[in-house]
């Protein structure tokens, strides 16, 4: 008998899901929304919408990271922390959950490229709606000024997707 088998279980063997596995995805979304409290004073607004990126990373990775209606309260928390007009993320995130459910029925297969394309479309919709809401408040920047944050968000999405897949593996004890 191998002596190591007698000691406490180490590594991957004998490790189950984390006790908070069901709530961890939602907790990471809240944590990402809370990144808005970082002491970054920027006058360009080119940083990605962290909460939304984590939300779509989870939803593209799995169909059931949380019950779909949780998107509304998660969006509410995001609105409060980021200073978006209240209700913006509530509506957008719920609609995202619904849209991705419909897309799940249609797509025949999934790979990294399709996920990235889906994320690109969702990020573009997010940025476009932010521009629209800013316009409704009389504060719409010129359209070319919306390009840098859009491109940055799209380029940074794979990093978030990778990070979320790592967290998912950890929470399920894999």
């Amino acid at each position, binding site marked *: 008998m191998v002596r190591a088998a007698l000691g406490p279980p180490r590594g991957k063997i004998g490790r189950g899901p984390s006790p908070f596995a069901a709530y961890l995805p939602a907790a990471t979304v809240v944590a990402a929304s*809370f990144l*808005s*409290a*970082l*002491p*970054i*004073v*920027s*006058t*360009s*607004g*080119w*940083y*990605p*919408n*962290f909460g939304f990126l984590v939300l779509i990373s989870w939803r593209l990775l799995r*169909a*059931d990271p949380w*019950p*779909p*209606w949780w*998107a*509304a309260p998660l*969006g*509410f928390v995001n609105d*409060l*922390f*980021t*200073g*978006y*007009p*209240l*209700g*913006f*993320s*509530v*509506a*957008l*995130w*719920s*609609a995202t*959950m*619904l849209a991705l*459910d419909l897309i*799940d*029925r249609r797509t025949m297969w999934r790979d990294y490229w399709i996920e990235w394309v889906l994320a690109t479309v969702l990020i573009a919709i997010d940025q476009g709606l*932010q*521009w629209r*809401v*800013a316009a*409704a*408040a*009389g*504060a*719409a*920047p*010129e359209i070319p*000024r*919306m390009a840098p*944050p859009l491109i940055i968000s799209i380029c940074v999405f794979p990093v978030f997707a990778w990070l979320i897949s790592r967290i998912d593996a950890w929470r399920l004890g894999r």
Partner: protein
Amino acid sequence: MATARPGWSRRAQYGLFFSFLAVIAGIVIGVILLTLSLVAPQQFERVRGAALDVTGPVAGALHEVTSTAAGVFTGAGNYWDAANQNAKLKRERAAMLQRMVEAKAIFQENRELKATLQLRERGRSTIAVGRIVGSSFNSPRRFAILSTGTSDGVRVGMPVRSSMGLVGRIIDAGALASRVQLVSDRASVVPARLLRNGIPVIAQGRGDGSIDVRPLEVGRNPFKRGDIIITSGTGGLYPPLVPIARVVKLDDDGAVALPLADPATTSFAIVEPPFEPTAVAASALETP
């Protein structure tokens, strides 16, 4: 909700259906909230203030850490070239002393002239002093988080300035922190004038950290590169004679200017009461 039908279980089918309804309800509630917050933003003043009280102090604490770390590096850098710097500062000081004597003479003359005109001088009071600890770095709007709130007397609508120039105005106020709409926000319009010749202009933010300045009267472009824009005090919200921005680029009928009070390097910001509260209240009644 992943598949059209989860099997033969009635319970699973109903569960799927109700979760579908719940998501649609979420969208509807979100749209209603969004409409309310665009049409009547004061509705959510309290809940937004409470959220600021959660994020504000955290941002403040993190800001402390980063500014200490940054201070160590710039502090070390200052020793690198100390002798040269010393000589330069001495030269500057000599020049400044001369200018200061001139300014004192002008100040005295000004006071005498005002006394003869019997112009009433309103003392400029300070409501609170805070640090800029965060910003809306992932939004097309330009907001900053200020580390002072209603517990210090800050109220929504008050102008904010720093020693360098005008910063913006308060739009959300929590007990411990408040949100400032910067002068570079697209919705920020400040009545201003040129320091050089007093021509009245309008300074509107561009949403990317710069400011668009246009003359009130159509005609020749009055701007030159390097011009300083100051507040005019029109409208009664912002106090007059506060520097706003420096012109960096001319365009067809106006110019692009950069704010003098860069929120990223502003250490302290001062919250002041509205300059003419009665005028502000009157204009608020006119434009609901």
